[in-house]
């Protein structure tokens, strides 16, 4: 028997009004934004756009009202997410706070942390990054070495976080630090902290240029940075369990299969001009995979709505979704044979140019393909 379950999940009819409202909003807001910028979707940061979304009530949609949320359903949030992604809205600034740091604080944060931070996140004014990876700790997250030593009133932090997306624009980092250095405390010696990136001495953030020349992720160096006691999240030594719960949120959304959707749309636009049986066949295949992934993704959303833990199912969707996203520039190349471009002004060429260079990251970020398949293999009873 398969260890995972994908029950069909149909979005309730009342989400349709919200969908239309979002489409109308996006038609207006995205008019002036070039397709190549839109292709960045949840990697593209635009604080002004985030504030507009906050004003619309589209950040923290499922959170309690007392923390600035809107107490809407996971399904309504799902509709918002997939509409933003499919249109290529620049949702990157608030994305991580909305997706995982907010929910993390709701679950494990102190009342003070929630009161102080969540309403600002929901307004689209306060952004998060995730400090997990380090120079010697990538997939092997428990190898985290950045140390938080107990001192009077807080912790003194030393070490380096790496590949931290958005650290250069974020207000806070949810960081995983080592608080117990005993060899046998590999997992139990980890603790999560809220780090105020804008008001803490001893933190140096250096953007790392990616292969396409974009500054998206960073190296964050801590040198005797002081983090007060009231910024500890959850329990000391409970970091591993909390991070695992957080990753279920990180891996479960429609951004795990829609990152190349804009290229698919532009491929169809090219084929409208050219026609041809081969092109039709390829598009038909892509549509079949798109529809399948959406149903799987919706099924995961249904589990979230029911309060179930879809960690395993989310890994399945992310693995299949990454193949779909990564394959898109290859399919485009084989089908149309047009060179990817930079700054040509041609939508198809520029979107292809951006995605061709970006897709290698899709099976690295949020857990590598091999890690995900390891999780799935564990679910199958193989490890």
């Amino acid at each position, binding site marked *: 028997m398969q260890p995972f379950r994908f029950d069909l999940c149909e979005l309730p009819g009342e989400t349709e009004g919200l969908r239309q409202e979002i489409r109308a909003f996006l038609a207006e807001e995205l008019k002036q934004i070039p397709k190549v910028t839109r292709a960045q979707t949840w990697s593209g940061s635009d604080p002004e756009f985030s504030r507009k979304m906050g004003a619309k009530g589209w950040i923290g949609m499922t959170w309690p009202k007392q923390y600035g949320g809107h107490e809407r359903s996971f399904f309504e949030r799902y509709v918002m997410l997939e509409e933003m992604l499919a249109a290529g809205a620049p949702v990157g600034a608030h994305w991580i706070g909305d997706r995982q740091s907010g929910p993390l604080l709701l679950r494990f944060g102190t009342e003070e942390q929630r009161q102080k931070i969540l309403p600002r996140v929901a307004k689209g004014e306060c952004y998060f990054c995730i400090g997990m990876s380090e120079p010697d700790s990538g997939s092997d997250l428990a190898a985290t070495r950045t140390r938080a030593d107990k001192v009077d009133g807080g912790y003194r932090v030393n070490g380096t976080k790496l590949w931290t997306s958005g650290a250069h624009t974020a207000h806070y980092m949810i960081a995983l630090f080592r608080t117990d250095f005993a060899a046998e405390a590999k997992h139990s010696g980890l603790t999560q902290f809220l780090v105020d990136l804008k008001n803490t001495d001893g933190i140096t953030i250096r953007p790392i240029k990616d292969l396409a020349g974009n500054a998206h992720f960073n190296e964050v160096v801590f040198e005797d940075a002081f983090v007060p006691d009231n910024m500890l999240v959850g329990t000391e030594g409970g970091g591993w369990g909390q991070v695992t719960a957080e990753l279920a949120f990180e891996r479960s959304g429609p951004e795990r299969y829609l990152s190349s959707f804009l290229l698919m*749309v532009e491929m169809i636009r090219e084929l409208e001009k050219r026609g041809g049986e081969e092109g039709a066949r390829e598009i038909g295949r892509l549509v079949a995979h798109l529809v399948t992934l959406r149903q799987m993704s919706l099924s995961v959303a249904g589990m979230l709505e029911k309060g179930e833990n879809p960690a395993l199912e989310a890994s399945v969707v992310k693995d299949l979704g990454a193949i779909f996203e990564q394959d898109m520039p290859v399919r485009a190349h084989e089908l149309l044979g047009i060179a990817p471009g930079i700054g040509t002004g041609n939508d198809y060429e520029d979107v292809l140019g951006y995605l061709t260079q970006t897709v290698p990251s899709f099976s690295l970020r949020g857990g590598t393909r091999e890690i995900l398949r390891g999780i*799935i293999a564990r679910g199958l009873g193989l490890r």
Partner: protein
Amino acid sequence: MNELQTILSDSVNGLLAERVTKALVQKAEEGDFPTALWNEVEANGLTRVLVPESQGGAGGTWADAAIVLKAAGEHVAPLPLADALLANWFLVQAGIEVPDGVTTLLDGAFTLEGGKLSGEAPGVPYGRNAAHGVAIVKGEVVLVPLDGAAIEPGLNVAREPRDRVVLKGAEATAKKTALPGNAMKLYGALIRACQMAGALGYLSSQSVAYANERTQFGKPIGKFQAIQQQLAVLSTQAAACGVVTDHACAQLDKRGAEAAFEIAVAKIRVDDASSIATSIAHQVHGAIGFTYEHGLHFATRRLWAWRAEFGAGSEWAAMLGRETVAAGADALWPHVTAR
């Protein structure tokens, strides 16, 4: 699962798990039709899932039928169970009484004149074993006894009978329906896709079980990452097919012939998965899986045969792609999210 679905699932999986032995499938491949099993399948109402209760059926939906169709594939039942289930549904659409015995699908070129059916169909599932055939001629569902038919035996690569059936003025019962013009191919694609999803689920669980059993280098081969990663891929492909076929059946229940979109999607996706999954399953099983003795091939050969029946994935993809391009790039997302 609702109550009917639980009953159906227990009934079909219980029966087929017990009765479809390697020996039975092997004998079927040698030409020995498992009549006793067929009679039990009928007695359990499994061919009449979509027939109203008033006509002796279960009065089920396509979501219910999917359970039976997947089980037929999962257990590699050497019977035209899926075909009969669909044939009976066609008869119900036309208001023609559903006969007992083996009823199969006649997917071919026929003409109907004065209540007499003439023409031929290639590759008729279990044509030699069927008492009746169901054809669709210009929107009319036609039920015809096959006792007078000329039958030229043939096989697909799973050694399932796929016979040429020739009829010359055979006495038939015909009634008009609102079924779409391509109903035979469309719904045929759906039943095969569901069977394939079942067979893919079997490949996944069987391959995991084998990897946990087979020891090399002092440990079960499933402990090696190279094997684990492959089995993870196989399981995700099987999972995708389970979802996409459930989706197609649910949409057919909801919107009738407009579910042609989801049926095409399902056949395309399952076809793609079959190529990946059969390859991994055989690789994990090694040489033993390549023997006739081991039963793995009963499922893999079915997948290789079924993926081309009632339109290969590529054919459905070309159709779906033409429609998508014709509707225009910006129509895709609204269409996908409206379902």
